[in-house]
């Protein structure tokens, strides 16, 4: 009797612990992009392997960002895993808000993650979020329209060529527009594109003393070039087009060229959604011969907020969703063209994946982006299409609104730049730079 009681207690405790370990429910906040929706559909595989249940909170990107930022800054603890990007991760990681991912299992093979992605998601060498997919930007173009215009797209074109081709491909009566570019205001929308593009034109956000640079010649050239090109060869309403709007225009065959995220390649070549699936070619984002290309680097990654009750289970999920096995699982279900790209080196060594038409161009684009030296002139910040400082998102969204208004013809490029310069200087002063 005296012997049995502690034993039963121990076994009961063990059983309790076991049920606790298997019955966790994870709340995961994610963005409603195609790859994440696919991941949601495959949750059953994770539950079967680990026993943990998953509750999804799928939100549109802007709503998601606002939601998770509120939660992490107040330590609200509403989520066990958050889908965040390359901009948030280093800032949050530095503040100690994320669980460091430094004890991932050996099978996970963390060294397989593309160095550019790993670097962008780490602080001082410690990984804080695991990349679910990574992207750069590149040109997607209509091979048939290019041919009809009598031109041939080089693998690494210049902006001069792209602008010329765009004007030649445009047929406004036939609703074909030579080039579709982002115009919708937002630091992750038009400013991602414009900041990256300005790098190719030799511009930069700040000089080494954090002084805003919108009053420079380079920015004026960039913005005027962009606005002129869009007015002559862009679709109507370009100032409200973001990634999604341009994607659907391209899928409908209304764009000759589109410079945007490399992940879009699998959508525009998917015959189920795209009317031009078999007529798409790819090229590196253009340059102007100054040594930098206008292609960005981004990753959507899974991070675990510090202080969550389900840290162990959350880590299991992060490993599952960003593993090599997950990629194979998607390939099995949806085909190789639809696996989440840009995160792992091994994917690009896979014979099956090499068959995918855009695989090589995606890898080349990712490899040619350099967040630590993004511009022609030196800068104090890290990031190609953003500057990894907490103030950037707010400032860039307001700057983006000025540029968007300039594209819509409500003010000149010069007026927009003057306002951008003033509001950036003001915000930087408020932040104590």
């Amino acid at each position, binding site marked *: 009797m005296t012997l049995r009681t502690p034993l039963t207690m121990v076994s009961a405790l063990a059983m309790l612990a076991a049920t606790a370990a298997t019955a966790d429910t994870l709340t995961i906040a994610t963005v409603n992009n195609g790859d994440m929706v696919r991941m949601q559909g495959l949750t059953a595989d994770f539950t079967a392997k680990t026993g943990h249940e998953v509750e999804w909170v799928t939100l549109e990107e802007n709503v998601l960002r606002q939601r998770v*930022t509120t939660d992490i800054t107040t330590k609200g603890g509403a989520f066990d895993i958050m889908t965040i990007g390359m901009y948030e991760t280093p800032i949050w990681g530095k503040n100690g808000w994320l669980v460091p991912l430094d004890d991932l299992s050996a099978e996970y093979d963390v060294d397989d993650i593309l160095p550019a992605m790993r670097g962008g998601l780490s602080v001082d060498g410690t990984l804080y979020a695991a990349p679910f997919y990574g992207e750069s930007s590149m040109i997607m173009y209509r091979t048939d329209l290019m041919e009809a215009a009598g031109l041939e797209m080089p693998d690494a074109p210049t902006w001069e060529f792209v602008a010329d081709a765009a004007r030649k491909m445009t047929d406004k009566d036939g609703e074909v527009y030579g080039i579709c570019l982002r115009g919708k205001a937002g630091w992750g929308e038009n400013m991602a594109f414009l900041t990256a593009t300005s790098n190719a034109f030799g511009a930069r956000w700040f000089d080494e003393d954090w002084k805003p640079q919108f009053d420079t010649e380079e920015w004026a050239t960039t913005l005027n070039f962009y606005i002129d090109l869009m007015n002559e060869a862009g679709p109507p309403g370009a100032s409200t087009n973001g990634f999604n709007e341009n994607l659907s225009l391209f899928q409908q065959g209304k764009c000759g060229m589109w410079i945007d995220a490399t992940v879009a390649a699998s959508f525009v070549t998917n015959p189920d959604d795209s009317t031009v699936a078999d007529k798409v070619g790819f090229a590196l984002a253009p340059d102007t011969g100054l040594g930098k290309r206008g292609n960005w680097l981004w990753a959507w990654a899974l991070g675990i907020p510090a202080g969550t009750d389900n840290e162990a289970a959350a880590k299991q999920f992060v490993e599952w969703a960003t593993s090599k096995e997950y990629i194979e699982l998607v390939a099995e279900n949806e085909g190789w063209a639809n696996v989440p790209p840009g995160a792992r080196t091994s994917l690009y060594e896979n014979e099956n994946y090499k068959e995918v038409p855009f695989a090589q161009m995606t890898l080349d684009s990712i490899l040619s982006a350099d967040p630590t030296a993004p511009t022609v002139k030196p800068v104090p910040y890290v990031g190609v299409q953003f500057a990894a400082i907490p103030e950037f998102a707010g400032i860039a969204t307001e700057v983006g*609104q000025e540029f968007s208004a300039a594209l819509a013809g409500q003010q000149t490029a010069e007026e927009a730049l003057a306002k951008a310069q003033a509001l950036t200087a003001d915000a930087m002063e408020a932040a104590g730079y």
Partner: protein
Amino acid sequence: MATQHSRSAARLMMAPAVVLLLGWMLVPLVMTLWFSFRNYLPLRGGDLGWAGFDNYVRFINSSSFWPSVSTTLIIVGGVLAITIVFGVLLALLLDQPMWGQGIVRILVIAPFFVMPTVSALVWKNMFMDPVNGLFAHLWKFFGAAPVEWLSQASLTSIIIIVSWQWLPFATLILLTAVQSLDGEQLEASEMDGAKPLQRFGFIILPHLSRAITIVVLIQTIFLLSIFAEIFVTTGGSFGTRTLTYLIFQRVLESQNIGLGSAGGIYAVILANIIAIFLMRIVGKNLDA
């Protein structure tokens, strides 16, 4: 008529509502006031100390402040004007004898049931999109170039969307008021040879004044804080940044709680100015 007893009972009955609302108003307000004097930047480590009136000065000196106030007033004013003018006309029409009155009424009030987010999404994508929107098709059908609604006519577009949502509300209130019009008085005036316009000006409009006041009051309260319609359609670009939206940008996009809180206090002040103004009119009209 009221005894001392019933008076204290009345106070007791009012207490829960008053206390709850007082709490709901005071607790966040006090916290907002506190934050507005702090240098509170969550992404830079949280509360960085006393800021004095810096946030207030910075918020009001920002180039976006006054435009945002005028945008707010234009949207509120525009929507009020549209919903009241069309509401009165619609109410007069719906009051006339006709076939299928019940069904028409249902059709007219339906927009009121639609969530603001949904109506903004539907209008933005399916009507105002310059390539695939129905308006674009309609314009092209008549040989005109499609309008880029949300960029070139951004404020108008938002006023259209919001008016569509609130027109049913205005129409319903005005309709009930019209229905209670004294038919005999109207007939008498008709016999006296009053022209329709005169009848409208001298009999109908004065009769509706109280209903109109109520529409103005209730709608203003809701319109001052419209958010979803702007968030979904323009994101505050093209001159559609209202004061509420500007505060949203400071608090959530720039993550500057102190600055945003100062903006919140300004918004409360603005709302109260409008409120006092409204209450003056309403107070007079409600006593009847």
